[in-house]
């Protein structure tokens, strides 16, 4: 990475690679953005491990920040270089997942939900309960993401448990087992979801809030997000600077740009996005914007549960459970 390049590692299609945004950033700072992508958090970590010095900015789900720090993959950030950092909502900025020994390892960017989304054509009135997923009427028209952690945490919510401290695993397993016959397929990318809705193959399924927003805003699909009364999984995505970055200044500039209200508003309007961690950015949205009105609703805030880091052992146990469920329906 030459000094003028900023190498960014992020999900594909997740804001940082929007052409208009890059153009604006490059114009403003003279840095050139080079994007690389990952398809799972594990893969992101592997890329960091096997490419020391290649990346300048990496987007990490806060639940994984811990691991990245432990492995010394990311370095502390001098937040004084980020003018917009001051506007980050304090509860996010102070998240113990991102701050260690007083040093900031991750700059909160956006947060969102893994909740439900529906095909508007299949519902006269949107459902309010997570149990809609088990409704016989939707048999064979339900989707869920092919991700063990999400599936198990979804099961925890459906059985009224704390996603970060699941006491009754058997109940989760039983609940998910009874969900399996409802399932059409397991989705793994936004595109899967959108195509299935477009061809009217599904009624309901788990979905990410930002993605549902994009489906509606950008692709004009009949999709709307449902935050069930039982609650939903919330996650926080943050930016970090990998150890060995050759362009820390550029990285800081980029991160600052990413949390800028101007960028955020444009992103939401043109493409659709999760909720910004920058309170000013959210306030810059129209009053009735979903990300402001619904996501900002204190009632919603009470229902959602933020993901905490999980251990490798837990992750493997979740995967084993998930795989067993998938084998059992074969």
């Amino acid at each position, binding site marked *: 990475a030459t000094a003028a390049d900023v190498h960014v590692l992020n999900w594909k*299609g997740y804001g940082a690679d929007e052409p208009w945004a890059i153009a604006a950033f490059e114009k403003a700072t003279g840095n050139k953005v080079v*994007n690389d*992508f990952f398809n799972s958090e594990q893969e992101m970590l592997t890329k960091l491990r096997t*490419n020391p010095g290649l990346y300048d900015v990496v987007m990490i789900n806060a639940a994984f920040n811990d691991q990245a720090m432990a492995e010394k993959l990311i370095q502390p950030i001098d937040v004084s270089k980020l003018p917009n950092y001051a506007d980050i909502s304090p509860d996010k900025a102070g998240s113990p997942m991102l701050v260690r020994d007083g040093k900031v390892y991750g700059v909160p960017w956006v947060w969102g939900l893994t909740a439900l989304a529906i095909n508007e054509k299949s519902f006269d009135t949107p459902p309010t309960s997570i149990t809609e997923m088990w409704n016989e009427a939707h048999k064979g028209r339900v989707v869920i993401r092919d991700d063990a952690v999400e599936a198990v945490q979804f099961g925890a919510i459906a059985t009224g448990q704390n996603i970060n401290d699941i006491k009754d695993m058997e109940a989760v397993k039983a609940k998910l087992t009874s969900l399996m016959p409802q399932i059409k397929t397991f989705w793994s*990318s936004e595109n899967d979801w959108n195509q299935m809705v*477009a*061809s009217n193959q599904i009624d309901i399924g788990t979905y990410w809030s930002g993605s549902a927003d994009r489906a509606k805003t950008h692709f004009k699909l009949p999709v709307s997000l449902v935050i069930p009364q039982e609650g939903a999984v919330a996650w926080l995505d943050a930016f970090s600077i990998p150890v060995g970055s050759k362009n820390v200044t550029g990285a800081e500039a980029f991160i600052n740009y990413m949390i800028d209200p101007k960028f955020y508003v444009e992103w939401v309007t043109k493409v659709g996005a999760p909720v910004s961690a920058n309170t000013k950015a959210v306030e810059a949205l129209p009053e009735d914007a979903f990300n402001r009105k619904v996501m900002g609703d204190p009632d919603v805030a009470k229902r959602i549960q933020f993901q905490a880091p999980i251990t490798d052992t837990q992750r493997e146990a979740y995967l084993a459970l998930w795989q067993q469920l998938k084998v059992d329906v074969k």
Partner: protein
Amino acid sequence: MATTRILEWLGRLYIWLLLAFLYLPIIIMALMSFNVSPFYQLPFEWTTEWYAALWQNEQLISATRNSLEIAIITTIISVVLGSAASLALFRYDFRGKKILQALLFPPIAIPWLITGTAMLIFFFGVGIGRGLLAILLGHVALALPYVIVVVSARLQTFAPELEEAARSLGANQWQVTRRVTLPWIMPGVIAGGLFAFAVSFDQFVVSYFLSTPGQTTLPVEIYAAIRKGFTPEINAVSTIIIVVSMALMLFAARFFKFGGGK
């Protein structure tokens, strides 16, 4: 004679049915590259916007160029090395030959995902790193077993006394190979080359692990694009590639007889 004709006719019909099966998804792909909906939605609405968009998409174009270059180089290297190895395995007997032959299967049998990861780690460890060169290194290795298996299958049908005849006429090993053996196994070499090209050109997993931003290939681009939200630009570029290769191949078929004339 009558039955022969009927069978011949049925044979032709069968081939056309097979081609229909093989081309069905390709045709759909081509059609969808002209459809407005990025989600394969019907009814069909004609547009060329995706081709226009493709034209603007430098990343996709450069990835396509990388893919083509790597596939062509992979094909050449793996065909040369693979054919040479096949010849050696055919001509000579030595201890451990069975093992060498068995060693061709791990690259095929182990899911590419594992091989790709292994390459990533190993290349990282020994300092080869990632990038187009690493991709090429990996692709050739993946294609080699295909070439060797296919060329060996063809070699089994070769009559060794033809080599003897050529040598008795004073031809050295190389002349024998080039003028007698190669022409006979040519259909196998070509099939091997076509496979090698396919292995490389459609190689996602290994390329995915070995590519770096900017040094990436078309399948990696496509995979990434699909996650975001598929755009028919990908159908468009795929359609262009298929149409151009078809034209090239039919052109080649006119002038070059490699079906293995008797």
